[in-house]
């Protein structure tokens, strides 16, 4: 336990140094560690946004396979026509730590695409923060169990 704490501190220090060298003059938000380590989807949203309340929105589209051939690489694309999007987050409730990625949009178009890991069949939740409130939509992705026995 003690060793872990030490390790974490030294890692944090090196991260800060690395940021300083790679991204000069960076004035960005801090890494939302608690949200990414929370084992509960609502908890993670709460850590990230201070609330886990969101409005279901038809203006957010998720493109993801209905059945994932392999949970190690699941393409997920989120697009939204909502105005002034601050961030788009991807949350997988069935994963050990549901918060996967959060994109601060800095004025970019309401579109992100990435590839994520899914441990088992679960909903993919796309959360859009705009105008200070949360909007979300979800899609189930079935993760297949490999056919051949282990």
């Amino acid at each position, binding site marked *: 336990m003690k060793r872990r704490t030490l390790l974490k501190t030294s890692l944090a220090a090196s991260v800060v140094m690395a940021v300083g060298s790679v991204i000069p003059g960076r004035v960005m938000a801090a890494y939302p560690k608690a949200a990414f380590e929370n084992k509960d989807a609502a908890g993670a949203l709460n850590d990230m946004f201070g609330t886990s309340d969101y409005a279901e929105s038809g203006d957010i589209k998720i493109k993801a396979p209905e*059945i994932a051939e392999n949970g190690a690489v699941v393409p997920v694309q989120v697009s939204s026509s909502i105005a002034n999007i601050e961030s788009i987050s991807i949350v997988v409730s069935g994963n050990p730590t549901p918060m996967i990625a959060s994109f601060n949009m800095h004025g970019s178009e309401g579109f992100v695409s990435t590839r994520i890991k899914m441990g088992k*069949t679960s909903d993919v939740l796309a959360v859009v923060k705009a105008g200070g409130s949360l909007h979300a939509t979800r899609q189930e992705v*079935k993760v*297949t*169990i490999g*056919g*051949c*026995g*282990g």
Partner: protein
Amino acid sequence: MSFRIITTVTSIAILIGMVLGTSIAATDEEIAEGKRIAFNRKLGNCLTCHMIVGGELPGNIGPPLIAMKARFPDKSALRAQIFDATVKNPQTSMPPFGKHGILTDKEVDLVTEYIHTL
């Protein structure tokens, strides 16, 4: 063959502390255990090839496991098929679960009991 079933079932019955009557009908526990083995990916892994009610995303290599009592009025014929399907059809894709020791004789018995209920 039937002697083996009787001895195996008897020993299981003793193990789990149950009193076996003259009938060799499987207990609920045995059927549940058979189901566990049938669904387990490292053991029976039946769902890989067969549809079984209650099993998610089954394969379709083999026939759906339904109406098994009608298809196998004689339970020992079902057991023989699970034990070594190559006897009936040398080209079958079904692994010889008993003959190749994929399952123990006891496990083949339990899976047979479970499949026969479907």
